[in-house]
């Protein structure tokens, strides 16, 4: 099987505290065989990583791969290829498919498809409630036995506190977390963050309190039950503060944030310039844009919230960067803002957007890499099932990513492997490029110039 030596790069393995300015990683038979300052060539392929970062493959806790049911948006094949392009070697697939992943049969289907066509590893997340309806618990133990790594009704927050309580209690049987999209359905119902931009655009807002009150409820329930709750895609300063306090109090809570909530704010909805200020000026000849590609759930929030999310990631309040990769077909975004689907594709731009957060000076590159590798693994205890995941530990699966943190590239439709082209970053230049990705020792993505 494969024998690859990656040499000359900066080897960064946060889980093991490894940071070699010029190091090598040897991959043999699909596993990490050695990590060291200067390893000899062994007869196999040698990849020159001069000037690059060599890290464990990224782990995404939150992807919508859309299969089964919405293959016109994405398939497991196209979604996992997008993952590989974005440096992800493991993606957790959200269960809002059709049928939803609320049965062993549906989970088996996803895992079967992933085995046949997946470019990288797929870990399914099961539904919390049957048919994601928020009424009756799904068979969580059977879903766990089938391979689910957590439970979520993502996109349809569990509105009933009693159901959420029972889910948290019941999930303790299999010791898996309930991943909640924290939103109070009675307060939500809008299409963007409630603030001055929603006022200017005349769009129905989703107040920050919608997320904050749901997080507060979940934290109280985590305290009540002693169960593990994982807060999906946190987006508000208030939410970050609640989670920080809960962690300090010793609750079993973990949290993730999306790359877009680390880099974009609600002004993005007004136009293509990222965080530009006040919207088009009088006489500028530039009119407002209702940019449906910036319509997200949870919505892009204020610059202060972006700062708070970065600070929360930097100080460990937030464990992981998770993409909430949400591909949609063209016609689902090329329509009135109210009618447009929520979400953006995120796998292929995650590192570039995270890199923007690093550029603010409030987040270190090392911490970003940690939050893309071992952070998510620990948050959901994925290493209980897959020892060594998210690390370069000798013997672990050889999932690696080669990154050029300084390389600039332009987001273009043709450059995206995802079927979804819905991103407010289209045409924008990002700094930070995934140069190559290895999954289980096989090169699953490489830019042309890597081939040697």
């Amino acid at each position: 099987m494969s024998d690859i030596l990656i040499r000359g790069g900066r080897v960064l393995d946060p889980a093991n505290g490894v940071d070699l300015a010029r190091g090598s990683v040897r991959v043999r038979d699909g596993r990490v065989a050695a990590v060291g300052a200067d390893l000899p060539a062994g007869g196999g392929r040698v990849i020159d990583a001069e000037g690059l970062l060599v890290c464990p493959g990224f782990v995404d806790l939150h992807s919508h791969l859309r299969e089964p049911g919405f293959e016109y948006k994405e398939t497991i094949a196209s979604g996992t290829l997008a993952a590989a392009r974005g440096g992800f070697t493991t993606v957790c697939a959200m269960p809002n498919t059709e049928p939803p992943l609320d049965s062993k049969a549906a989970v088996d289907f996803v895992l079967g498809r992933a085995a046949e066509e997946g470019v990288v590893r797929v870990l399914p997340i099961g539904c919390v409630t049957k048919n994601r309806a928020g009424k009756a618990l799904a068979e969580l133990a059977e879903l766990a036995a089938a391979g689910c790594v957590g439970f979520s009704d993502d996109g349809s927050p569990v509105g009933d506190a009693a159901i959420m309580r029972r889910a948290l209690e019941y999930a303790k049987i299999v010791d898996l977390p309930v991943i909640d999209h924290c939103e109070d359905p009675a307060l939500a119902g809008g299409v963007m963050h409630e603030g001055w931009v929603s006022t200017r655009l005349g769009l129905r807002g989703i107040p920050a309190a919608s997320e904050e009150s749901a997080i507060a409820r979940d934290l109280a329930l985590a305290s009540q039950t002693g169960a593990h709750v994982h807060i999906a895609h946190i987006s508000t300063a208030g939410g970050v503060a609640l989670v920080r306090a809960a962690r300090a109090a010793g609750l079993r809570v973990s949290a993730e944030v999306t790359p877009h909530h680390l880099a974009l704010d609600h002004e993005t909805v007004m136009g293509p310039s990222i965080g530009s200020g006040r919207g088009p000026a009088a006489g500028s000849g530039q009119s407002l844009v209702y940019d449906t590609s910036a319509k997200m759930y949870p919505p892009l929030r204020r610059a202060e919230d972006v700062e708070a999310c970065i600070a929360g990631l930097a100080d460990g309040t937030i464990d992981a960067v998770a993409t909430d990769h949400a591909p949609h077909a063209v016609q689902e975004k090329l329509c009135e803002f109210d009618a447009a689907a929520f979400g953006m594709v995120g796998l292929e731009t995650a590192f570039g957007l995270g890199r923007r957060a690093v550029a603010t000076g409030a987040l270190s590159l090392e911490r970003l890499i940690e939050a893309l590798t071992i952070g998510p693994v620990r948050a959901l205890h994925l290493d209980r099932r897959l020892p060594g995941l998210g690390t370069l530990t000798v013997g672990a699966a050889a999932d690696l990513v080669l990154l050029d943190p300084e390389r600039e590239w332009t987001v273009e439709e043709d450059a995206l492997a995802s079927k979804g082209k819905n991103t407010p970053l289209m045409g924008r230049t990002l700094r930070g490029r995934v140069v190559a990705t290895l999954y289980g020792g096989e090169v699953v993505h490489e830019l042309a110039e890597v081939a040697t």
Partner: protein
Amino acid sequence: MVRSRPAARPESAKAPDGAASLEAPQPGGAPVWQRRHVLDLDDFRLDEIEIVLETAKAMKEVLAREVARVPTLRGTTIVTLFYEASTRTRASFELAGKVLGADVINLTAAGSSIEKGESLIDTVRTLRAIGAHVLVLRHPMSGAPYLAAAEGDAQVVNAGDGWHAHPTQGLLDLYTLRAAIGPLAGKRIVIVGDVAHSRVARSDIWGLSRLGADVVVCGPPTLLPAELGSEHAAGLPPVAVETDLDRAVEDADAVMTLRLQQERMTAGLLPSLREYSHLYQVNEERMARARPGAPILHPGPMNEGVEISAAVAHGARSLVEEQVTNGVAVRMAVLYLLRRDQ
């Protein structure tokens, strides 16, 4: 409750972006009107507003003629595409187009391919393909006219989109107010009612602040939009916010009332019509606090006895009928300016 006062007058006469050249004419005598679409007043320069209002004055003279019909827009096809019910706006655009000699086709959502699920973009493309030059669009979703403008090559006039904008209503309100009380700079103009869900209020606020008026909005907090009047709202025009109508109308130079939709009650935004009219009805008692003779506007249709008393609605201060008449002239001006150089 005053969340913030408007900035000092010279400041409020400026665009919220602080554009310094707002009042300067275009250099080199270049035409000041270069707009292909009229979507909102937020990006209108002062000189663009002035040219509309001046042109509307000329259009009023046309309307006063015995045979109010000129051939100016002969050969222009205007389609009014209304996804929401409307009486005065649609009729006013239709009449405006016909007086100017244009062909006007009226389409409503009911009885067209829209009912069969055709997307807005496809409808716009179809109308352009059959030769529509100007599309007058009314739509329940904010931003829809921007989509129509971006995706087709017809010229688009926003005739009201969701809660967002109703620019020709804003322009006719400016015209009507100025005709009644003169220049608006420094005038205290109070907008009362359901500001949160009002496209009329938003367009009025942009237009009034561009002309230098001191805008006060008044209503229950449940009907005021997020962060309006807040110092943090960098991209909103400066306004003062007041929840007490008696205080708001104190020394007002004009009062603009907004229609209260009955559905606000069922949505739990108000306890009752009774309490609403008790707190926020514009009536003669309250108007006594305003400046003598201060006029009252209402975009219609009115709920008499709710947001406005019948006596005020039909009293000497009421400009409601002038608004309707001026609406035709202002829409003639807009259609003329859009087509003039095409």
